[in-house]
């Protein structure tokens, strides 16, 4: 707690101004924070309502909570969450397996034209995947990958790889030169260098990279929507299915939304510090 300290002989007017300034600032920040958080809070509150309480005017803040919506959600989410978990973890593992060596080749012992390599990767991020969705559908169909978890794994890996390479590269660049030179003097070859010197040092960075990849893969809707139906449908699809064509089911969709979002929210809260670095692709430390 930053207590507002008492100063000796401080003139009362000054002290009043100082203390009220500090307190006022804090109040403003809290108001803004709560206002921004309000929709999330409302989502969670609504998730505990029976539908009858969710569709009232004025909206109810006091009601008798029920777990009925959540029970519904959990009874239906089985395959969806499994698919999401598989697609997310496998693609993230692949991203790390491909990305670590690539980042290595673009940082510690850079290949000639490494700049071009870096920009090639980032250019794939700039080209909208949406542009190729039609032909992607056709390709997936013809290779029998349509509605298979593999099509998502393959595409999510490609989606997150550029980000991961930039990020991991930024972490590798922070390994002190002297450490690498000492390892070289000790006779460490390339593989040794990566495995025993670099990876241990950047392991927190690898964790934050993995978390960022998990966030993007878990939340991804567009590809899942277009390329899967039932056999590989992920959590975002589950969400859509919780909104039937007819009728208003506000409480139910809130429960589904809450369940779908909670994993990523928790991950993001825990990995807060590395969030900036991940989002800026390593530009901001």
């Amino acid at each position, binding site marked *: 707690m930053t207590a507002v*300290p008492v*100063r*000796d*002989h*401080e*003139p009362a007017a*000054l002290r009043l101004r100082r203390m009220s300034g500090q307190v006022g600032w804090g109040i403003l920040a809290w108001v803004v924070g709560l206002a921004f958080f309000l929709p999330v809070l409302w989502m969670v509150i609504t998730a505990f309502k029976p539908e009858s309480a969710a569709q009232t005017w004025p909206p109810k803040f006091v009601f008798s909570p029920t777990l009925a919506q959540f029970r519904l959600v959990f009874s239906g989410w089985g395959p969806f969450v499994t698919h999401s978990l598989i697609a997310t973890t496998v693609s993230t593992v692949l991203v790390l397996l491909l990305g670590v060596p690539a980042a290595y080749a673009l940082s510690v012992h850079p290949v000639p034209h490494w700049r071009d390599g870096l920009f090639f990767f980032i250019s794939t991020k700039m080209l909208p995947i949406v542009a190729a969705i039609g032909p992607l559908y056709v390709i997936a169909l013809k290779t029998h990958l349509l509605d298979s978890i593999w099509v998502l794994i393959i595409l999510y890996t490609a989606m997150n790889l550029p980000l991961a390479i930039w990020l991991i590269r930024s972490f590798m660049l922070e390994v002190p030169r002297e450490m690498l030179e000492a390892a070289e003097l000790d006779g460490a070859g390339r593989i040794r260098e990566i495995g025993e010197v670099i990876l241990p040092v950047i392991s927190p960075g690898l964790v934050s990279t993995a978390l960022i990849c998990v966030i993007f893969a878990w939340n991804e809707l567009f590809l899942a929507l277009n390329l899967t139906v039932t056999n590989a449908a992920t959590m975002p699809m589950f969400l859509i299915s919780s909104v039937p064509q007819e009728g208003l089911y506000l409480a139910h969709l809130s429960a589904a939304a809450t369940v779908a979002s909670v994993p990523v929210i928790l991950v993001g809260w825990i990995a807060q510090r590395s969030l900036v670095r991940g989002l800026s692709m390593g530009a901001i430390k």
Partner: protein
Amino acid sequence: MANVKFVSATRVYAKDAPPAVDALDLDIKDGEFMVLVGPSGSGKTTALRMLAGLEPLDGGRVEIGEKDVTFVPPKDRDIAMVFQNYALYPSKTVAENMGFALKMQGVPKEERARRVHEAARLLDLDDTMLDRKPKALSGGQRQRVAMGRAIVREPRVFLMDEPLSNLDAKLRVQTRSQIAELQRRLGITTVYVTHDQVEAMTMGHRVAVLAGGHLQQCDTPRQLYDNPVNQFVAGFIGSPAMNLQTVPLTEGGARLAGTTLPLPTAVRTAASQAGLREIVLGIRPEHLHLANGSGPVAGEVMLVEELGADALLHVRLAEDHNLVVARTEGRKPPAPGQQVTFNVQPDDVFAFHPETGARLAG
């Protein structure tokens, strides 16, 4: 141009921790160059920042020009500060850096440019540099820009926080004399913080030695050297440092290297009044005069450091095996392993209380 006063100034950081600055009382005269010196953690930088208004006071007050400025914000104190890392504005050119304070005061553009040019000339910054940004400058150039930014303001007080510590040794010596000369010319009251006692001794009119948040002694360099008020000041001022050894008291003096060094009556009286059996004896290296085998203090040379004009002898004394450093002529110093003897003048011997460190009968 104004005098500066710290009156019982105190700064506490953590509730139960000892104060960073503890009831500091310091009077700095108008136009004086006052150096605050001490080891890291002594509170010297905190005291400077309290004067600047960058640290609040938890007790006491600060006065500039006989006016209480304790609650006056920095910009209204009419002071200028040179920071340790220069704190130049990276997005602005040298000229904009130097003119920034004037711009904040609303000084018109031509007047600003004139004063910036004047200060630049004073500091040997040529016009080509004025349009450059700080990152295109060398360390020494940046330091001068930082000084220029302070000079342009023509403030009542200059504050300098270890401005030379980031320069290489040669540049430091050069800039040291330039700063002292500048202050003499401009005559502005200056409070200068450093951890380097050589800087303190060569630059200040008076030097305030701080340790652990307390003022140890505030005096001219000469006085600090000749009449240190306690063991800390005696050991801090002077390079190489004064030899300080705990030795037993005997009839008529203190026992060192198997011989009794006579102590003045006043010292012996003070020691017996305090009920002391031993004292801390202080002798400066240059006061151990090499005698050709006939001196009372004997020892064996362990190491010789040849400095050119002088040589420093690290000597293990006979009997009590205390290690002392003695300074001698550089021409033909004794060799390591040689047995040597020293003469010491009674006036050159300092005695300190072994627990409080206070000088006995100064």
